């Protein structure tokens, strides 16, 4: 059996498919994780902004 045959073997093909599924899954999870972080960060920024506004008001008021 030569190298070309090996690269086309069903086991190798399956192995590559499985690896691709795994990598894709992890990538999707990472994207969702980033999204989660962004939601939290944006909200914290908003809260900080509100806090700043509150402080400004208290100073100017």
């Amino acid at each position, binding site marked *: 059996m030569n190298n070309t045959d090996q690269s086309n073997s069903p086991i190798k093909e399956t192995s590559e498919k499985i690896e691709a599924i*795994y990598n894709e899954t992890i990538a999707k999870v990472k994207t969702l994780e980033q999204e*989660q972080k962004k939601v939290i960060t944006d909200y*914290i920024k908003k809260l900080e902004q509100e806090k700043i506004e509150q402080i400004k008001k208290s100073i100017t008021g």
Partner: protein
Amino acid sequence: MALENQKNEEGKEQIKGPDQQLEKGIESPVDLEKQIAELTAKLELAKKQAAEVSQTEVNKLDKKVEELGVANPEATAAVKQEVGNLEDQKQNVIKSGEEQISQTSKKTTEQPKEKIKTPLGLTQESQEILQNKLPELLSAAGSGKLNFKQAEDLGLALALNGDIGKINELIMNESIGQSERNDIAKESLRLFADSGHPAEAEKLLNYLSKQPDYEVKPEDAFNREKMFSNETTRLQRNIAQSYLDSGDIDSAKNVTGKMMKGVDRDAMGDRLLNKYQEVSVPENMKDVWDDKTQQEQKYKSLAGPLERAVREDDLEFATLISNKLEDQYKNLSEQFQNKGTAEISKGEDADLTLRKIDQLRETLIQDLVKNKKLDQAEKILQSIKSPSVDKEKWSRYITAQKAEVVNN
């Protein structure tokens, strides 16, 4: 120096080993299983980590809210809800990944089984190759330039198509060498016999049995005194079994009768008798009989086949049944022994059956003597239990016949 060089080379080999392994990648089912287990475990871990990350982010949020002291509970709850939804999505993505991996690996492990199960015992790949070669092979046959390998392939390819007509045409075509025609028949016979096509296989076996230069010489199979090919027995057994499976008991019996004496033939004989008994016992009665009645009924049910075998002059089969009857008679006798009066009527019934069967055995002995099968006749005579048969008379007659054979 030379030794040192050798050591260095070995050292290089040792260093090279793992790299080669990496380059080699996954090539065996074991490697694949390992990879699947590893990636599934990683995904399982990813599930936990994902949940932990979500919780950490929520904690971070709570802490920040507390630090800032900005009270907006509704907005905070809405953010937490969104984070929770995203967490659900992450878990679903991981679950889906696990399922996809499982299904992909299942498909691969099922592939070899499919290959084995393809019709006529050939892999899908081999079948395709043969089908593609068919036009070329037929052309070679047409021009009379068929070598033995091509002849075998042609037999296989045509059998794959179930084209017994074309096979017949080719094996009768005298422009093709006899040896090549035998190869066509031999390979298609093997495929038909092993794949539940008994009628086609039987025709080809009969054809080959008439070819004097056929190397396996299946005709020897019909001479029960000679050694012969196990392959032929195997094929005959498969043909008989296929007939039996399809309910064609008579054809199964005919093929079994042609088999060489031995364990295969005996086993087929037993299966035939069981089948005869199966069909003799009414279906609706099977469940209600107790063990003893079943034995009795089984015994009775052999009378029919024995009667027919004797009537049709099928001495081989009649003898087989007769021997089977003897075994069953022993079982029955043991069961009737030590039984109380309640069993008497059944015992009488069995006695009547026995007498009827012994009469048939007597007819069988008559036929065996007529056909000069005196040893067999003697054996059957010894097994007769009923006093209504004059065993002494028959014994004297057989002895006289034996003496006559010796004198001649």
